[in-house]
């Protein structure tokens, strides 16, 4: 097994060599603080109350500019989600007006149904861009579409620690990252200074302030709390099957480990005659007998 030994030695050496190489990664980007999320790790699950609060923030603040194309009202009652009841979803959908055609083919606005998707705030990307300078990105995959450079060696550790929350960490950081630009920083007109945005010049004005959204459950109404809740909600919007994935993953892992263990001992038993011939144990030459 020389190849195995050399392979391990080499992997360690390569790791050390890469560690010594210049870390060029985060030149224009301040790494966002890593928060602890209820959905991180192999047994992570969403915090229903947090998703409901995050949804409230989305509805009252984000939704005026950002679409949520791939999420339907009915998803809010799906298992592994914010946990609204179907009655709540019916009532919620009915508050929305959906563009549709009537029986005669005439365009109408009807009340929403649970199967409808969230209507976009702008009729198309051009209208969104005209109203905002830059079209605000759709939010249904945002938490998986945003990240930041982890750099060596962190990206290797992430594989083992299962750090997959770059997206929500980044979104939270952006929301709390608005500050006065440093004196030597030239902010172009229409831009806003954000500590965590790559290049610091972000088109979106600060969307959230302390006390802006009312929480009914006594949760602190602070910017930091809003940022955490909306980030968690967006993670759910991007990865609504996370809870099922973690649950099935654990079952599959147990199954595979048991299967591999059984196969290992089966292999041992089958190969025993080849690897430790009976003749050798009895002091005879195994080369004189056939298998």
């Amino acid at each position, binding site marked *: *097994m*020389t*190849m*195995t030994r*050399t392979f391990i030695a*080499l992997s360690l*050496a*390569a790791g050390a060599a*890469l560690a010594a*190489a*210049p870390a*060029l990664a985060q030149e224009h980007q301040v790494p966002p603080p890593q928060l602890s999320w209820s959905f991180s790790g*192999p047994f992570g699950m969403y915090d229903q109350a947090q998703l409901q609060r995050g949804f409230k923030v989305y509805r009252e603040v984000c939704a005026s500019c950002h679409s949520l*194309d*791939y999420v339907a009202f009915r*998803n809010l009652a799906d298992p592994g989600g914010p946990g609204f009841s179907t009655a709540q979803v019916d009532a919620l959908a009915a508050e929305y007006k959906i563009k549709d055609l009537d029986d005669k083919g005439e365009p109408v606005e009807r009340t929403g149904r649970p199967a409808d998707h969230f209507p976009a705030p702008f009729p198309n990307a051009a209208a969104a861009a005209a109203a905002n300078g830059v079209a605000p*990105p*759709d939010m*249904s*995959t945002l938490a*998986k*579409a*945003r*990240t930041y450079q982890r750099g*060596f060696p962190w990206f290797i550790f*992430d*594989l083992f620690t*299962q750090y*997959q929350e*770059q*997206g929500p960490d980044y979104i939270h950081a952006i929301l709390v990252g608005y500050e006065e630009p440093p004196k030597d920083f030239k902010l172009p007109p229409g831009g806003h200074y954000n500590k965590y945005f*790559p290049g610091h010049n972000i088109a979106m004005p600060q969307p959230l302030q302390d006390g802006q959204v009312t929480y009914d459950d006594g949760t602190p109404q602070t910017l930091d709390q809003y940022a955490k809740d909306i980030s968690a909600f967006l993670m759910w919007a*991007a990865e*609504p*099957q996370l809870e*099922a*994935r*973690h649950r*099935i*993953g*654990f079952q*599959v*892992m147990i199954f*595979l*480990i048991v*299967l*591999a263990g059984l*196969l*290992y001992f*089966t*292999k041992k038993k*089958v*190969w025993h005659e*080849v690897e430790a011939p009976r003749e050798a144990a009895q002091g005879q030459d*195994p*080369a004189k007998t*056939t*298998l």
Partner: protein
Amino acid sequence: MSGHSTYQPQNKALQWLETRLPIGGLIHSSFVAYPTPRNLNYWWTFGGILSFMLGVQIITGIVLAMHYTAHVDLAFKSVELIMRDVNYGWLLRYIHANGASMFFLAVYIHMFRGIYYGSYKAPREVLWILGVIIYLLMMATGFMGYVLVWGQMSFWAATVITNLFSALPGVGETIVTWLWGGYAVGQPTLNRFFSLHYLLPFVIAGVVVLHVWALHVAGQNNPAGIEPKSDKDTVPFTPYATVKDSFAIAVFCILFAWFIFYVPNYLGHADNYIPANPAVTPAEIVPEWYYLPFYAILRSIPDKLLGVIALFASILILAFLPWLDTSRVRSARYRPLFKQCFWLWVIACIGLGWLGSKPPEGIYVLLSRVFTAYYFGFFIIILPLLGIFEKTKPLPNSISDSVLKAKA
């Protein structure tokens, strides 16, 4: 090696079939009685792992294709709907996307093993070249599959890679237009990539059959790099190789499941969750990890045409390996100098992979050039010369000799 089949079915129906189509005998001689060297280590289980992965990719791919729409306005959406509305669609897609990475991981280990133990040498040249063809087909298939998602990185990777052909003098632009089916990456490109992405895995499966056929004619190489001389040197494929391969596949699946269930997007790029937008170029365009070494070779050469030539040469040179390596000794176990040069070459490959993900500036360019030079130097200078100058260690008399000596 395989010899005549000793398959004698007891069942009347099987006897009837066997006299008309001896498929039972074929299976028996290929996967039951087939003699396999007794000293194979676990690096030899990756052939079985690769067959398993090809099966996984084809099965999940067929189901995904039932739900996918190859249209520029709908492709991204259909992928998202697979993730959200198709029963276990998220599982199928994460298996398929991470399966591609696992497939490449396994094929790289399989190739490194083949080079380390000299498995490409006579009489296994055709076996090796068929492997290189499979690898080329895999690269094409993987690339086109990545484009189907139609995210930002899909679109821009398609643009960059197809544009490579524009470097060819005279015919370049025409070829690129022909590949695209238009004047930019668009609907015809996506549609034909879907068609080819569905076709090529079956071509791979066909070449795999040839690969296994060639393997069963020449017989497997082994860590000692000497041919089996008697029955004592081999064990029958079933149960010995079957149970060992099954165990290896189960262990490999644990790694695979880790990616699928716990870090499904680790090997992907965040930009691919943004729908393709021809008007916005991403800050950085990087290929999937398994193409990074070749991307680094491409960018290490300042001239575009020469870079493209180097890129293709770096893969095609593998096909000439059986003749570039002039040594008669197969296994690196008995080739001390080759062993060192081989591991340096592995470092160069991994180093190029890391550099492919870095911006082409400063120290990274210099390192890419050093590693690229070594990558090619290994094939065209070191291997031909080593065969002449290297003093190899004495080979064991037989496989069973080498096994028993190792135990003693």
